[in-house]
């Protein structure tokens, strides 16, 4: 009974959403006539005044950097929240539930892969402004590396304090760069470094700095998430 009601409701809702989107149209410009979209300005400014190759990066870090700051905060809060929600009085660091007792192949494989993954992650976020990828992606990749290690090695521990120091420092860098911009440039997160030339590693002003901070932060946070959940015995 309940199922059918729900299905009916969802069908109605789905119908309205779909017709709206089908009407909007896929794959062509669906803007209202006479409106100049912001994206044109973004694309132009990215390549012309910021000298950043990857527009998504420039948007995420510069134009809408505030969103990113918020997003990093969300992750940070998620880690804090996890800790708060799963907090138990007698929390023992050594106690952990292992998913599998990993075989030799896995452990040695992980050992080999781990540096490679971390390196890949670092590459991804350092080159965030040049190629696809960036702080999030790189951070996530590094976090998967740690995940691998956590799964493979029973006794692999990441210092909780280390994580939170990295996290805090990265966060402070981000917010600090923002406030620095406020002091020097007049607005929060404003670019105060020379923008360099397009497709150079050192281009885009503060974008790489922020993205690297984001990378570290995301990596630390996601590792923290996994670590917290993993060390939780039900």
């Amino acid at each position: 009974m309940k199922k059918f009601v729900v299905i009916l409701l969802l069908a109605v809702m789905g119908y309205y959403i779909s017709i709206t989107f089908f009407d909007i149209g896929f794959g062509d410009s669906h803007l209202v006539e006479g409106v100049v979209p912001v994206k044109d300005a973004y694309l132009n400014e990215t390549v012309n005044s910021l000298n950043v190759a990857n527009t998504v990066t420039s948007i995420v870090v510069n134009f809408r950097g505030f969103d990113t700051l918020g997003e990093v905060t969300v992750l940070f809060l998620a880690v804090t929240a996890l800790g708060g929600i799963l907090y138990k009085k007698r929390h023992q660091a050594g106690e952990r539930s292992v998913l599998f007792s990993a075989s030799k192949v896995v452990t040695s494989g992980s050992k080999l892969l781990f540096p490679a993954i971390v390196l890949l992650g670092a590459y991804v976020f350092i080159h965030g402004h040049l190629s696809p990828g960036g702080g999030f992606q790189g951070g996530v990749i590094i976090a998967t590396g740690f995940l691998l290690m956590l799964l493979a090695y029973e006794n692999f521990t990441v210092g909780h304090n280390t994580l939170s120091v990295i996290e805090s420092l990265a966060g402070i860098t981000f917010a600090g760069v923002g406030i620095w911009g406020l002091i020097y440039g007049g607005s929060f997160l404003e670019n105060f470094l020379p923008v360099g030339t397009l497709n150079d590693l050192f281009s885009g002003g503060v974008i790489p700095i922020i993205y690297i901070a984001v990378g570290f932060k995301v990596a630390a946070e996601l590792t923290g998430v996994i670590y917290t959940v993993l060390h939780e015995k039900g």
Partner: protein
Amino acid sequence: MEDTLFKILDYGVYGTAVLVILIGLYGALVKRSLLKIVIGLSIIDSGINLLLVAIGYLKGGTAPIFSPGYLDNPKIMVDPIPQALVLTAIVIGFGVTAVALALVIRLYRHHGTLHIDEIRNLKW
């Protein structure tokens, strides 16, 4: 090859996205297990993200990256803004999912079950 692929994608993308959202909603609304509900919520997120990216897509467009050596025309690039938004949305969605799962663990610890009808101490 690419043409047919795009044909399939054409309206299929929206359709898929909406369907995925609805399936996720169904799971969140009907299934009795808390974990299933969380799975449903994360499926909704996937659908939403797909919808967002699809909005920004431009037929025959290129990724919004200015590569060295190419003469990139901003006119044919896909809209980068939705992509930026999706990046944010994905990460936020992950954070929420993590919190949800932590709550699930807490609830299991407290109630010894994940059946939603049994976790109704707060009502009226």
